C-alpha cells in the first residue's frame, strides 16, 4: 500500500515537479561547462557546482513545497477522509525531500568522483552532505509554513525568493552578527572552511524541525485548511 501511495503522490506532483531538480542540475552543469570553456580553474568549477547544491536545489525544493502546501484541489474531500490531511501533507513534503535528495546525493557523488568535492566541502564525505541537507530542509519547511500561514503560492514564492536573495546580497550582515550566523543558509559557498560550518548546518536543521512542527500543527487545523484560496 505504501509503495502504491508513493507512486500516486509522485504522479500527483506532475512531470514539472519531478523534473524541476533535473532542470536545476542541467542549469548548473551548463554554467560549469561554460566556465570551463572560458578557462575557469578546478576550484572555480567546484565552487559553482557546490553552490548549485547549496543555493539551487534547496530554493527549487522550497518553491515546489510552497505550491504543495498552498494548493490542494480536493481539499474538502481530503479533510473528510479517514487519513488526516496533515499526514498526507507531511508525506508529500517528505517525498519531495526524498526526491530532491536523490539528485543531490548523485550530484555529490559525481563531484567526489571528479575530485571537485573536497575542494569546497569539509570531510568526511557523509558529513559533507549537510551542504545541501540543511538548506533543503530549511527551505521546504519554511516554504510550506509560509504557504499555510499566508495561503498562497505567489506570496510564498516571493518570500522564499526574497529571503534567498536577501541572504546572498546581505551576507556580511549574517556573518557579522552572532545571532544571525546560525541561520546563514549558504556558509559553504561564501565562507568555505569556516569553523562554525557544522554548528551552522545543525542550527539550520533545528530551525527546519521547529518550523516543520509548526507546519504539522497548522495543517491539523481543518477549518484553516478548508478556507484555502490565494492570499
Amino acid at each position: 500500500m505504501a509503495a502504491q501511495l508513493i507512486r500516486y503522490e509522485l504522479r500527483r506532483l506532475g512531470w514539472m515537479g519531478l523534473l524541476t531538480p533535473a532542470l536545476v542540475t542541467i542549469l548548473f552543469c551548463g554554467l560549469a561547462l561554460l566556465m570551463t570553456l572560458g578557462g575557469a580553474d578546478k576550484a572555480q568549477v567546484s565552487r559553482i557546482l557546490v553552490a548549485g547544491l547549496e543555493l539551487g536545489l534547496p530554493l527549487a525544493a522550497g518553491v515546489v513545497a510552497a505550491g504543495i502546501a498552498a494548493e490542494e484541489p480536493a481539499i474538502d474531500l481530503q479533510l473528510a477522509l479517514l487519513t488526516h490531511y496533515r499526514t498526507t501533507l507531511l508525506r508529500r513534503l517528505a517525498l519531495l525531500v526524498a526526491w530532491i535528495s536523490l539528485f543531490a546525493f548523485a550530484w555529490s557523488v559525481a563531484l567526489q568522483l571528479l575530485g571537485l568535492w573536497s575542494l569546497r566541502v569539509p570531510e568526511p564525505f557523509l558529513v559533507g552532505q549537510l551542504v545541501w541537507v540543511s538548506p533543503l530542509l530549511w527551505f521546504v519547511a519554511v516554504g510550506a509554513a509560509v504557504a499555510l500561514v499566508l495561503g498562497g503560492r505567489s506570496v510564498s514564492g516571493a518570500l522564499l525568493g526574497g529571503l534567498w536573495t536577501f541572504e546572498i546580497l546581505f551576507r556580511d550582515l549574517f556573518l557579522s552578527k552572532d545571532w544571525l550566523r546560525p541561520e546563514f543558509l549558504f556558509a559553504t559557498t561564501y565562507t568555505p572552511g569556516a569553523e562554525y560550518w557544522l554548528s551552522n548546518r545543525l542550527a539550520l536543521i533545528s530551525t527546519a524541525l521547529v518550523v516543520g512542527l509548526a507546519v504539522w500543527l497548522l495543517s491539523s487545523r481543518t477549518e484553516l485548511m478548508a478556507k484555502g484560496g490565494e492570499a
Partner: protein
Amino acid sequence: MSKVTSSVLIGATLYEFRMQLRRKALWIATGIFFALTLFVSQGPWQFPSSMLVIQILAFWTQELQTFMPVAFGILLADRLPRDRLLRADELLDSLPGSPSERFLGKYIGATLATLLPLFLIHLAGVVYVAVDQASAEAIPLGLAMFAAASLPGLLFVAAFSISCPVVIWVPLYQFLFTGYWFWGNWLLQGPQSPLYIPVPTLSGTLLTPAGYYAATGLFGVPDFVLRATAWEGLSSIGLLVAFGVAALDAAHRYLTWRKSTR
C-alpha cells in the same frame, strides 16, 4: 484603434488592475520586502547631510531596486495561468475583442497595480528628502529618477513575468526568476575577489534592470555604482523596453498559435 479595441483594452486593464490591487499577497510581500530593505539599508533620513540631493535620491532608488523587484516579478507570474486555473480562459476567449487587447490589458493593469506600492514607497522617500533638504526640485527629480532608473527595469521584469509562465510552470519560473535577479544584477565580483567565478552574466551590462546605467548616465550621479554616459543610460532604457516588448510579443504569438490549434 477601433471603439471595441479600446474598450476591451481599457476594460481588461481596469479589471486586472483592481484584481491585483485587491490581493493581500501584494501588500504582504511588498511590506515584508520593504521591512527587510530598511533593516539592511539606509532610509532617506539616514544619509549623511553632506550628500547631494541627487546622490540621496539615486541611492534611495537603488536600495528599492536591490531586491524588491523579486517580489514584483513573482507576484506577476501567476496572472496568466490564473485564468486557466479558474477556467475563465474559455469564457474570456468567447468575448468580443481580440486576445491581443486582453493580453496587453492584463500586462498593463497587473503591472500598474504591482508597481503602485513600490511607487508609493519611493514617493514617500522623495517627499522626505524634499522636506528634509528644503529642496523643492527633489520631487520632480525623484519622479524622473523613478521613471528613468526604476521603471524600465520593472517593465522589463513584468513583461517576462507575464510572458514566461505561458510556457513555464509557475514554481519553476519563480525559482528561475529569483536566480536570474541575482545573476543578472549583482554577480559583480571582480577577478581579484576570492569569490570571483568567471561565469557569463548580464550583471554590469546595459541589460541590467537594476537601473544604475540610467541613474548615472542621465542624472550624472557622482560616486555611484559605476560611471556611464548619457548615451549608455538611454541605450540601457531602450534595450530593457525593447526586450520587454519582444517577450510580450513572443508570448502573444504563442497564445494565438495555441488557440488556433485548440
